[in-house]
């Protein structure tokens, strides 16, 4: 695996779909995730969040070209790719990516958009108090040290792939890595000054909805694109993705309606994202019924997880990256063997259901532990090199002006 085969058949249909899917996945970071997060913070920090997401996309794109792609998708090592595609030196114009009917350039670019959004998901943990230099340093190092190896283990033919771990579009590779790392960074960075009793509510819930809606659309590229081909697999993945999002949204609204008497917009779209993160590892195999059930479960479990992190663990994972993404990704990964069994039109497992569950659990646990330890080291390093936290006075004044010299909202 992992070798470029010259003159292998390139499919125009596959290529057209993955080109489209690539654009959709980039849309998830720019601007979808940026807007989703920016609406959730205070008005004085809106630009800082947009700037963080935008800059991470650029840093990780260049690093993916230089080292990341090669470390994740070259060679057949158990633990890490090789250096043969550093700076994409081995890339040819017409060569197909092994195991697909795609030009390798399209595969490189499609996977790049995943390497971009995963570190950007972590932004939600550290907003409103982190130094911009620390954001750039942590994100770049994290993509190379945590994301690229994990992608190799599961998607690049590494040891977890050989063991038979199933992760269709990134329940483990994207959401568990980002969620666990978010918790570690939030814990090391310490809470915002106002946490927990004087934190201000989201400054623009409408912006959160616009971001979530764009994420929902972009997720079609994320999950259905992960089929790496245009056909029944992609179609079924899109159907499952959509149904899980809808079902999770309704379930989260129901929880709030029963508990507080009113279903909120921010709650509804948080349910959407939980449903999307949860179906991600299972999108290829869940089938429509499985997706509806998994979505409903996602809302209940993630709602509880958000409460647990904030109120019980008292960690200021400000925008609930672990509770919504990490827990959702893990839930979908672990529920996958059982969802396939009860659903219709589902896919095939690599092992018998119980054995598959064991393999999935190994994947989640090992990757979670690896992410936590590696993120701790990266964050310590960033603390020593550039410092993690802005001055208390700057935090009060807001990062828009103190870090970027701009103001999001002028009175007139």
């Amino acid at each position: 695996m992992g070798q470029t085969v010259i003159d292998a058949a390139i499919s125009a249909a596959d290529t057209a779909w993955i080109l489209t899917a690539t654009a959709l996945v980039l849309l998830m970071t720019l601007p979808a995730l940026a807007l989703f997060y920016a609406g959730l913070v205070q008005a004085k920090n809106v630009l800082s969040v947009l700037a963080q997401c935008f800059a991470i996309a650029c840093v990780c794109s260049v690093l993916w070209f230089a080292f990341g792609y090669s470390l994740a998708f070259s060679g057949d090592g158990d633990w890490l790719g090789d250096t043969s595609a550093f700076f994409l030196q081995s890339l040819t114009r017409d060569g197909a990516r092994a195991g697909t009917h795609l030009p390798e350039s399209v595969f490189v670019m499609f996977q790049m958009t995943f390497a971009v959004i995963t570190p950007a998901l972590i932004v939600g943990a550290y907003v409103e108090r982190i130094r911009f230099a620390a954001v750039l340093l942590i994100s770049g190092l994290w993509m190379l040290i945590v994301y690229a190896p994990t992608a190799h283990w599961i998607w690049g033919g590494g040891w977890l792939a050989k063991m038979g771990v199933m992760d269709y579009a990134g329940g483990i590779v994207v959401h568990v890595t980002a969620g666990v790392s978010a918790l570690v960074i939030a814990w090391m960075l310490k809470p915002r000054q106002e946490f927990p009793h004087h934190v201000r509510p989201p400054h623009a819930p409408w912006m959160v909805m616009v971001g979530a809606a764009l994420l929902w659309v972009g997720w079609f590229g994320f999950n259905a694109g992960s089929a790496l081909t245009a056909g029944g697999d992609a179609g079924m993945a899109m159907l499952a993705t959509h149904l899980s999002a809808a079902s999770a949204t309704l379930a989260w609204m129901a929880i709030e309606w029963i508990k507080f008497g009113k279903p909120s917009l921010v709650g509804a779209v948080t349910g959407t994202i939980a449903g999307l993160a949860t179906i991600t590892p299972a999108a290829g195999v869940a089938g429509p019924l499985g997706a509806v059930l998994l979505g409903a479960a996602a809302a209940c479990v993630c709602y509880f997880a958000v409460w647990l992190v904030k109120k019980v663990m008292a960690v200021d994972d400000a925008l609930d990256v672990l509770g919504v993404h990490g827990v959702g990704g893990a839930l979908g990964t672990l529920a996958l063997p059982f969802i396939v069994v009860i659903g219709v039109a589902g896919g095939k497992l690599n092992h018998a259901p119980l054995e598959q569950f064991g393999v999935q659990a190994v994947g989640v646990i090992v990757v979670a532990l690896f992410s936590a330890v590696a993120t701790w080291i990266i964050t310590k390093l960033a603390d020593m090199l550039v410092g993690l936290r802005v001055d208390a006075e700057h935090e009060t004044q807001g990062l828009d002006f103190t870090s970027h010299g701009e103001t999001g909202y002028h009175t007139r």
Partner: protein
Amino acid sequence: MKLVTAIIQPHRLDTVREALTAIGVAGMTVTEVRGYGRQKGHTEIYRGAEYTIAFTPKLKVEVALGNDRVDEVIGAITQAARTGRIGDGKIFVVDLEAALRVRTGETGDEAL
């Protein structure tokens, strides 16, 4: 001369303006403000966490008048702004020392 300052619910502005226009008040100044009285703000819930919104949005309507019109104007505002629920606002009246119309230089009652 008197300055009447009314703090009202934002959605009552049109009714208040119509009531004042109907009794011949020719001008007013409106400012978006935030504050609380007995209402003590409210709470909002996001992702299961409760946030206290101490200062709720209100509008401040200011009208400058001759002494003889004060009771009439207060009556009109009170009637137009009232919903009967907590948070309907307050009206303050203070003495106005001087007034001047910038364009013409007229002063006192002439300037109102």
